[in-house]
């Protein structure tokens, strides 16, 4: 019997809107890259929206969260609100200097710039006053 087996890995749940626009698609790229950097673990927003009990309960019981929306329509945050789960560390890509468009390829420099802003904000939230 291991003492740590239920406590491994990051407890920050990452959910993202994965919308159709450039900024929606960017949330997917951001989520995957931030998870790869150890900023959290990917979780299935569709499962929450589908009201699957394991997904909904996981969102409600989440210790920490990173919620990524592409635009102010904020579908990811709204899905969480709909199931009465907390919305923590909510970021909207269009509010971080990227304009919403359709059919445009993601620019590496935009992804890096938004990701750096998110990382900095998460670090500030973890270490308030520093």
């Amino acid at each position, binding site marked *: 019997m291991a003492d740590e*087996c239920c406590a491994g890995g990051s407890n920050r749940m990452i959910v993202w809107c994965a919308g159709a626009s450039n900024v929606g698609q960017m949330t997917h790229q951001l989520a995957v890259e931030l998870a790869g950097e150890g900023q959290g673990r990917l979780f299935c927003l569709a499962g929450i929206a589908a009201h699957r009990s394991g997904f909904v309960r996981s969102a409600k019981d989440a210790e920490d969260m990173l919620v990524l929306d592409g635009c102010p329509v904020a579908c990811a945050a709204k899905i969480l609100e709909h199931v009465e789960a907390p919305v923590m560390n909510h970021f909207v890509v269009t509010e971080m200097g990227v304009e919403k468009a359709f059919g445009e390829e993601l620019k590496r420099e935009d992804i890096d710039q938004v990701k750096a802003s998110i990382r900095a904000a998460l670090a500030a939230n973890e270490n308030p006053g520093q």
Partner: protein
Amino acid sequence: MEIKVLGPGCARCEQVEKLIREALKEEGLTADVSKVKDMKEIASHGVFGTPAVVVDGKVKSVGKIPTKDDIKKWLKK
């Protein structure tokens, strides 16, 4: 009533099972309590973390040790 404790079998999982069995005894109820250690089956419940508790197919708790009072509420529903 069917109760599943999802988790690979650590001390926290054991604690959850113990609390469930105590709650059942205190409430004078019986249930089929089982531990699920298979990661594929755990994943099929869509939980973000373990230990997790499933009562009659519904996930009631994820990634924490529930209180005995919480467990008793689930047993009464």
